């Protein structure tokens, strides 16, 4: 059984159009040289190997279980008429005329006499915070990565890289704490904002969490550009900066894009920072100086106090499904970009 599975009969079909490049090269090579099984084996070996095989599927199982069990709790929103009395998909996404309001509005007010579950204030809030975070994190992350890989000497590199790793190790609740206790006051004094906690504070704090992601992936991408590219460009008389802007950056482009996609996924899903620093008021507005409530923070703040299986509970799980789907999409996008860059550069190196 074990031998059958491992035998090189399952020749893998090369993926569409790609050449078997260096990424899979060495491991293929290793396989061919792998020791053959001895003929005499104690019986428990088969058992142990079976266990390894079963446990190897734990990640796939986890992904499937996450999908199934979050979906299961959100499912009643789509088909349960008892839930529909309180909330429907249409009520979540279209403005509703509520008693006491002048016009149809998007309102998120799940705990009130007439519960209101408009999703737009949360989605827009998430987008605002994410936009601020990306506007800060992309220039800083990519810029620092470019500096470290192109200009910095060894000494400087050995200061910047571990520092970024240090930042990556800071728990998000600590960044949230810093934004809430320290940064909010500074920003309010500097900019004269009305509310202390707002999309700007949360977004800037959030950028601290994703700078390491963008930096690390970008730095790797810049480092992966073959030296022959740079040498060829220099030989043609290009200045250092011309080589960087016209050759290195375009070649590493997909890798940088992957880093940004991963950072985006992280920013949208991050919870503790926005929960602590955003002010948590579900206001539908375009201004970054207003308090906001994001999708993730809403789940974190409200789920502990809802009735299991009720409308509110179901809606929160539905929001979870949205988050899960969005980050899955950005991850696959990032992976695709990295794979593309590997193929492109691998063909030359």
């Amino acid at each position, binding site marked *: 059984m074990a031998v059958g599975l491992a035998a090189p009969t399952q020749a893998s079909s090369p993926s569409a159009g790609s050449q078997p490049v260096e990424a899979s090269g060495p491991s293929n090579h290793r396989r061919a040289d792998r020791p053959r099984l001895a003929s005499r084996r104690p019986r428990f070996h088969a058992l142990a190997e079976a266990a390894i095989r079963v446990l190897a599927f734990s990640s796939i199982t986890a*992904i499937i279980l996450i999908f199934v069990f979050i979906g299961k709790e959100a499912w009643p929103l789509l088909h349960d008429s008892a839930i529909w009395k309180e909330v429907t998909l249409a009520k979540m996404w279209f403005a509703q005329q509520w008693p006491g309001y002048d016009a149809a509005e998007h309102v998120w007010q799940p705990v009130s006499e007439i519960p209101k579950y408009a999703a737009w204030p949360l989605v827009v809030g998430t987008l605002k915070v994410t936009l601020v975070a990306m506007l800060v994190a992309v220039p800083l992350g990519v810029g620092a990565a470019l500096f470290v890989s192109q200009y910095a000497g060894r000494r400087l590199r050995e200061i910047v890289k571990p520092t970024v790793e240090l930042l990556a190790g800071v728990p998000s609740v600590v960044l949230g704490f810093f934004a809430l206790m320290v940064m909010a006051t500074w920003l309010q004094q500097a900019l004269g904002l009305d509310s202390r906690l707002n999309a700007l504070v949360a977004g800037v704090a959030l950028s601290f969490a994703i700078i390491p992601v963008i930096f690390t992936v970008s730095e790797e991408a810049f480092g992966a550009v073959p030296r022959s590219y740079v040498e060829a460009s220099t030989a043609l008389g290009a200045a250092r900066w011309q080589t960087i802007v016209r050759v290195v950056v375009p070649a590493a482009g997909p890798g940088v894009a992957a880093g940004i996609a991963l950072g985006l996924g992280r920013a949208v899903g991050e919870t503790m920072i926005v929960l602590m620093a955003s002010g948590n008021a579900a206001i539908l507005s375009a201004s970054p100086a207003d308090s906001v409530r994001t999708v993730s923070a809403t789940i974190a703040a409200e789920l*502990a106090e809802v009735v299991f299986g009720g409308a509110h509970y179901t809606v929160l799980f539905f929001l979870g499904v949205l988050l899960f789907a969005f980050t899955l999409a950005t991850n696959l996008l990032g992976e695709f970009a990295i794979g593309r860059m590997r193929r492109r550069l691998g063909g030359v190196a």
Partner: protein
Amino acid sequence: MKRRSRRVGDVALSLGTGLAAVLVLLIVAVILGDVAYHGAPHMTLTFLTQAPREGMTAGGIFPAIFGTVALVVLMTLAVLPAGVATAIYLSEYANPGSRVTRLVRVAVNNLAGVPSIVFGLFGLGFFVQFVGAGIDRAFYGGQRVFGQPALVWAALTMAVLTLPVVIVATEEALAAVPRELRLASAALGASRLQTIVRVVLPQALPGILTGAILAISRGAGEVAPILFTGVAYFLPKLPGSLHDQFMQLGYHVYVLSTQSPDVDATRPILYATVLVLLLLTFALNATAVVVRSHMRRRFAGAAS
């Protein structure tokens, strides 16, 4: 003229990107400096060994430290076998190009990107509501014992979250073991499993340890996954069994900074708690870095 424009471009680009790097350094310095400056004076032995008192405006954080340690110990017990087995499968058994292998890799990468709050939802929906309630129906006649947020469910949720960390680190460690060692073992008549257990795993042990430490560091700092699966605001007693709730450092930071009745009285305690949490995660990360570089040096020596 041409020469000067070349130089201007270089200066501009190096200054611009250099400024980005300096800003990143500055951010880290300001955060760590602020926490260290305000937190250090209050971090005393009594603070580390006492329970909170007077609505958390006095006393220490011992129950939160205890809960964090209990959580990560249980988490490690759960995540290590699954993570190491996956890495062994990927590196020693699987056909690298096969569809199954690619699928496992995609799953690992995506699992690493799932938002932590989604893990919290999953822990509540699966572990608490499904597994826990199932155990109660089967063994406790429907009485609520495991079917509620508890230490064990928080630990298992955190184990799922840290699974990719362990897999990636272990796989890297296994890949670094020289092929010659495997061949030599096979030449002596060892089976593949014997080779793995007696030759490959001992060589890869530092790398596996690195993975475990990184997972612990991650698990010690995450709060969102345990919000609904077992963490408690305040408990008079330490958790005594798997189905008890627990206090945790990260959540304690959240509680102190958002729900304190007296912000000024809480501030020193809050800063000291943050400092403890930071020191804990940094110490773990630093250990991982040291172990890893040690391992690399060893193999670099063996290969040449």
